[in-house]
């Protein structure tokens, strides 16, 4: 029986976080495909996805052998660091203090870099193109693997969290095939903001559980934590925006 207080936010967090990461990876894979050819672009991406799948299969069950309180504390702390880092950046971007991430600019920069890189071949493969595609999918994918394992394995929801991430991958691949250009219109900062809220809430919950604290309302307190972090984040966007305007007026 699935506990929906955990499963709903877990699947949503895995889907949204993976969507953001795969959109960023798609930008570079598209640039590699357009400039150096689709064969090395898809080979590099495929190789990275296979490596990531092995990581999930190996690491997920391994966590089950460690005492639950230790896993909750360690994974909870890492989730807090990861989630608050995303949330902090998303708040500063939403407040206009740091610039928004621009997929079109990222695509142009990567395409420019690839068109000026020398072509080195190994057994008929363009190694620069394969490694560029492999590296970006691995880099973004490692974050997806961490999120899926962190929010899935601790609560025994590895499969639903993995399905959330898989659905995001399919959405991004489908959009990439249909559009053949970077997904610049996806509201990336809003997604990062929401994922930051969700991961911070999960992190706080598991740190509390790992420390032996009793959350009021047990598992349902995750929803209260999500509401709490969301309220703090929205207040901070408004406050940082006002503070930034005030300081600009003074200087």
């Amino acid at each position: 029986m699935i506990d929906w207080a955990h499963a709903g936010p877990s699947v949503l967090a895995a889907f949204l976080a993976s969507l953001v990461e795969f959109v960023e990876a798609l930008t570079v894979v598209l640039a590699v495909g357009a400039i150096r050819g689709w064969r090395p672009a898809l080979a590099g991406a495929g190789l990275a996805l296979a490596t990531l799948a092995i990581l999930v299969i190996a690491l997920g069950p391994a966590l089950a052998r460690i005492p639950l309180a230790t896993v909750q504390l360690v994974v909870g702390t890492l989730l807090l660091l990861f989630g608050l880092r995303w949330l902090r950046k998303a708040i500063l971007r939403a407040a206009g203090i740091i610039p928004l991430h621009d997929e079109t600019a990222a695509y142009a920069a990567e395409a420019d870099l690839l068109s000026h890189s020398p072509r080195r071949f190994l057994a008929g493969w363009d190694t620069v193109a394969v490694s560029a595609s492999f590296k970006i999918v691995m880099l973004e994918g490692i974050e997806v693997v961490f999120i899926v394992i962190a929010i899935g394995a601790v609560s025994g929801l590895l499969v639903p969290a993995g399905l959330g991430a898989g659905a995001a991958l399919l959405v991004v691949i489908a959009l990439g095939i249909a559009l053949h250009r970077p997904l610049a219109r996806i509201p990336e900062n809003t997604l990062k903001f929401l994922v930051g809220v969700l991961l911070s809430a999960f992190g706080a919950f598991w740190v509390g559980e790992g420390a032996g604290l009793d959350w009021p309302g047990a598992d349902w307190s995750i929803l209260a934590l999500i509401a709490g972090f969301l309220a703090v984040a929205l207040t901070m966007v408004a406050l940082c925006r006002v503070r930034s305007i005030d300081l600009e007026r003074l200087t």
Partner: protein
Amino acid sequence: MKRMLAAARELVALFVDDGSLAIAVLAWVAIATLAFPVLPIDSGWLAVALFAGLALILTKNLLRAARSRTRR
């Protein structure tokens, strides 16, 4: 060796963007783990205090970041 160091740096960067935020979060988690269980306070209130501390850490960090980045 250089590649391993670069990979380790990228791994750390997944979790740490602003060093002071990371240190404050780790310190608060350590306090919650080591000191909270021995305090003579209801565990439910301590759980609420854990969230409140994290919210305060994030708030202070953001206000400092907003101040310093706007002054540049």
